[in-house]
């Protein structure tokens, strides 16, 4: 027995190392950053070439960006998941194919249509799961090539007679790039939440004469809501911290004005951290500002995470009471 304490102890040590590393990182950031945080830091723009002042424009830009991203990604993601889980035929392609071989006439057409739907659903599921692992810098490439230089320049050519309006990095392109990055994650989380709703509930609703849409909107969705919300908020938090996709699609080093239009560039907390840590002319002087900026970014993403988890717990409690 004694002999086995050692290897188990090693496993505990591995766990301990991870926890300690996390504590060191967070501790280092909080200790070095908290002293510089003040109302002024949160509400004023950077001054003297980033060596003084605050991060208000970066906070504003991050929040604006994340809002646009949410508006673009969440409805589409949730509805796509509803399609995949509720409307796409719950059969395999092989089953439909064997029916198709026996069917004739109008029945053959119906089965063929079902087969198309099954294939579309399968392709989407595969694409979604693999896309969730594609590096975020690839999304940045896509955003620059597609949104900025293809769509944006196209809009300029057709609507503005070649004047540079949308064919340049802008908050709308950065938000859409991030929306594409988060879309697969939202779809996966929503599908999971929908799958967790027992089938009996759907059957009961349909048996009582409700239509499919009534069943989905009044029975399935309310049940799945906490799961969907949690997944969505965790995804938003991920989007708020991503920098690679916005490097070339809209983030700016310094801007004298806050972004107000969709084709404005914007400052961003994560990008600000990147710039301050790699391109500061005076490292010692910017260090406290840098630490404070990191702390603000961490608080923003972590508090979103916390809200997500709390919503989940609340909803669960409420339901337990309701039953």
């Amino acid at each position: 027995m004694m002999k086995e304490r050692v290897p188990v102890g090693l496993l505990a040590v591995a766990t301990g190392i991870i926890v300690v590393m996390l504590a060191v990182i967070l501790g280092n950031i909080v200790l070095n950053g908290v002293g510089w945080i003040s109302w002024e830091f949160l509400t004023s723009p950077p001054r003297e070439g980033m060596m003084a002042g605050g991060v208000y424009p970066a906070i504003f830009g991050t929040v604006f960006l994340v809002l646009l991203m949410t508006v673009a990604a969440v409805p589409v993601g949730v509805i796509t998941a509803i399609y995949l889980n509720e409307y796409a035929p719950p059969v395999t392609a092989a089953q439909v194919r064997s029916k198709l071989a026996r069917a004739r006439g109008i029945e053959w057409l119906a089965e063929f249509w079902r087969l198309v739907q099954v294939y579309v659903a399968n392709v989407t599921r595969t694409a979604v799961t693999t896309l969730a692992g594609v590096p975020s810098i690839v999304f940045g490439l896509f955003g620059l090539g597609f949104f900025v230089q293809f769509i944006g320049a196209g809009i300029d050519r057709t609507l503005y007679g070649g004047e540079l309006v949308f064919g340049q990095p802008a908050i709308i392109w950065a938000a859409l790039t991030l929306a594409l990055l988060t879309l697969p994650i939202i779809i996966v989380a929503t599908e999971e939440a929908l799958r967790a709703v027992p089938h009996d509930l759907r059957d009961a609703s349909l048996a009582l004469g409700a239509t499919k849409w009534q069943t989905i909107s009044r029975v399935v969705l309310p049940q799945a809501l906490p799961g969907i919300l949690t997944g969505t908020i965790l995804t938003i938090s991920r989007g708020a911290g991503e920098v690679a996709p916005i490097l070339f699609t809209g983030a700016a080093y310094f801007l004298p004005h806050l972004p107000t239009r969709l084709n404005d560039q914007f400052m961003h907390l994560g990008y600000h951290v990147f710039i301050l840590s790699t391109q500061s002319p005076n490292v010692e002087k910017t260090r406290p500002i840098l630490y404070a900026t990191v702390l603000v970014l961490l608080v923003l993403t972590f508090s979103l995470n916390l809200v997500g988890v709390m919503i989940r717990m609340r909803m669960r409690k409420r339901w337990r009471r309701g039953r």
Partner: protein
Amino acid sequence: MGFRQVTDRLAHGMVALVALTAIVAIVLIFVFVFREAMPILTDPGVHREVSLSRLFLPLEQASEGRPFIWQPVGAVPKYSLVPLIIGTLKTTLIAILLAAPLGIGAAVYTSEFAPAGLREWIKPVIELLAGIPSVVLGFFALIVLASWLQRAFGFTARLNATTAGVALALAVIPIIYSVSEDALTAVPQSYREASLALGASAWQTAIRIVVPAALPGVLASLVLGFGRAVGETMIVLMASGNAAITSWNFADSTRTLSATIAAELGEVIFGSPHYRVLFFIGALLFIVTFLLNALGAYIVGRVRRRLMGSE
């Protein structure tokens, strides 16, 4: 047809339409990145500067005895991907070598040995690590970790492959941990009970029964972690030093594939050979991570089916 039926049909149509939009958008990413990289294979104009052989094979006239050079800006641009591929492999290797024992060890500990109360704490804490934005990990590596490691190992280059690799491990650990932990907890309780009933100790049960049963899942966690490490950008961009040196020395400053895109796309001329090469790198990362993730997902799916007993 009543009002309810009309609404029902409309809703079905709308849902299908929106889903179709999402599907088109997703397919568009695949198509577009590859379309922008294609001229490297097909366009003779691009071939004057760069072609597949120049990306991967040694230079015909090796300058100063260096057959592989990445130097995209200059009188004669040189686009050898070899230093970048080696750089990516170096940082990834360090990350996996560090993250694998820690992540898997912690997963085995949590699922097999940790008291229930402690288990409730470990999981969310490691998830917290996953929630740290990669730019923050990059910042930490650049400002703090690099100095510590330099002092400990006496690196001449403050930012190097090892520093970037260690920071990268922080991003990979949560993936390896959570996928492994899932695989381990999916092993049916009856396996453990049978083993213990036959007189095996807890350690024997864990190592000879539970871990082998979950092994494919644990391997999948490594595959997925590898995919993450290959594609991760901000951490290596900030902590690797970004010098495209062709060497296997882990103390040398290093440039990776992903960091190259991030560092150079900002200044590149739209449609130029250099632009094509960066998209080619993007397509390469896309394919590699796609294959790794597909492999990982396949293994995870098989393990789940086998342990659920339907196979």
